[in-house]
């Protein structure tokens, strides 16, 4: 079959036209199959560009896209992805019961190929789905929320170098196929398989640029500490994907200091910002640049010391919270609201020994710490995450790497 494959699941007809109902049939673009593109790395391919465009435009007309062009997928190309895993193509990788929809290995592969992944990336994509399923938030509808979250994938272990995942300069930026397309594979699947189209089942008020793609690797080689997956019980030789629901990525500029307390206060001051407080408390992933990680380590601080310090200092005064109308919580939702609201009840900090100081973190474990970026300046980032507020993040081992 030379025509493109439908990108959605059995339920996709409810969210978009099925292949059979298209106003015009899929283009038979010979260039999407076989030898011409396979030779692309050796020189300009001899292909019918109009045929390729016709296939890409067909996908766009079906709505099987994040807005950018997608790669047409044929049965033979799909087979290359499925050959990279021992899982059955019909195995479910993530189900959303409230939508009566589920993603199988086959659908995950189609969308990974459409996103521009190479077949060698597919074990990482499958590990990402396992971690996303374990996280708990996506299957409860957080991807449809007005808050506008996105899944951030963090990759650790040897697979990073094997497939060329960037963990150094411009780690949150563009320029690296593995990062760009693995993250995009998740978004295309959300749209095509789960039907989470903006303005319909995706109700994000503004969303986040991370919705296009958000996949980074840890700079393990320039970290003074055990990497994220090892910290949570994996072997250093394991490759693993951590999945975290995120809203914002806020940068920290601190090029001036060699004092660990100053840097940690800058980070804590960013985490505690009142604008991030919808719930009583928040959680964060601190992505330290190598220079900042080394600053802490040189002073004898481990990750746990960083966590403890941030936990103790990421707090607002009761007065500051009252000024923005967030000095109490709802008795129904525990979302923050003013103390004079009819639904208001005191927050947990009100019963502490210092009720006028309100922590934004419920425990040191609400902060995860990792290292990424270039070793060229005192720049780090705080990723504002949606849980877990304590407890380990959801991490899955990458399997079938040699498949």
């Amino acid at each position, binding site marked *: 079959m030379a025509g493109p494959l439908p990108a959605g699941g059995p*339920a996709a007809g*409810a*969210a978009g036209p099925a292949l059979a109902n298209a106003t015009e049939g899929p283009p038979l673009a010979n260039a999407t199959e076989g030898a011409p593109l396979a030779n692309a790395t050796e020189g300009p391919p001899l292909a019918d560009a109009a045929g390729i465009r016709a296939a890409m435009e067909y996908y766009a007309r079906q709505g099987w896209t994040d807005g950018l062009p997608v790669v047409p997928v044929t049965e033979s190309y799909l087979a290359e992805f499925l050959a990279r895993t021992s899982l059955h193509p019909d195995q479910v990788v993530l189900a959303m019961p409230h*939508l*009566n929809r589920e993603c199988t290995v086959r659908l995950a592969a189609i969308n990974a190929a459409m996103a521009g992944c190479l077949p060698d990336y597919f074990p990482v994509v499958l590990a990402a789905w396992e971690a996303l399923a374990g996280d708990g938030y996506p299957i409860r509808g957080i991807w449809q929320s007005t808050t506008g979250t996105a899944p951030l994938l963090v990759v650790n272990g040897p697979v990073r170098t094997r497939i060329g995942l960037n963990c150094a300069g411009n780690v949150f930026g563009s320029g690296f196929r593995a990062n760009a397309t693995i993250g995009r594979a998740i978004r295309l699947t959300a749209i095509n398989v789960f039907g989470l189209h903006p303005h*319909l*089942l995706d*109700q994000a008020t503004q969303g986040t640029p991370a919705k296009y793609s958000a996949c980074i690797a840890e700079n393990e080689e320039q970290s003074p500490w055990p990497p994220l997956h090892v910290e949570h019980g994996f072997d250093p030789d394991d490759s693993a994907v951590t999945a975290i629901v995120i809203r914002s990525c806020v940068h920290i500029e601190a090029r001036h200091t060699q004092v660990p307390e100053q840097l940690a206060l800058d980070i804590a001051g960013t985490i505690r910002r009142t604008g991030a407080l919808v719930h009583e408390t928040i959680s964060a992933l601190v992505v330290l640049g190598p220079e900042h990680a080394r600053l802490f380590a040189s002073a004898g601080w481990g990750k746990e010391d960083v966590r403890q310090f941030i936990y103790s200092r990421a707090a607002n005064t009761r007065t500051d919270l009252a000024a923005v109308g967030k000095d109490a919580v709802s008795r129904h939702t525990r979302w923050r609201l003013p103390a004079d609201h009819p639904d208001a009840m005191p927050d947990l900090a009100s019963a502490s020994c210092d009720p006028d100081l309100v922590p934004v973190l419920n425990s040191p474990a609400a902060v995860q710490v990792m290292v990424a970026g270039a070793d060229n300046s005192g720049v780090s980032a705080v990723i504002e995450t949606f849980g877990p507020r304590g407890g380990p993040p959801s991490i899955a081992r990458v399997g079938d790497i040699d498949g």
Partner: protein
Amino acid sequence: MSVCTEPFVPAAQAMARVYGFPAYQFVTMPHPLASLDDAQIQARARDLLPAVLRILGAES
């Protein structure tokens, strides 16, 4: 009986299609809701009551 603000109508209709009830009727009201005070909420409820009763089949 589902009540939603107007910006959520497309999402509500999409969910109704997912569950096989494309003609499911909602009571809709203007946005916003969350920031209204007590008196405004009471007024909103009074305004919505006829529509609620109509969908429930209880109008007289």
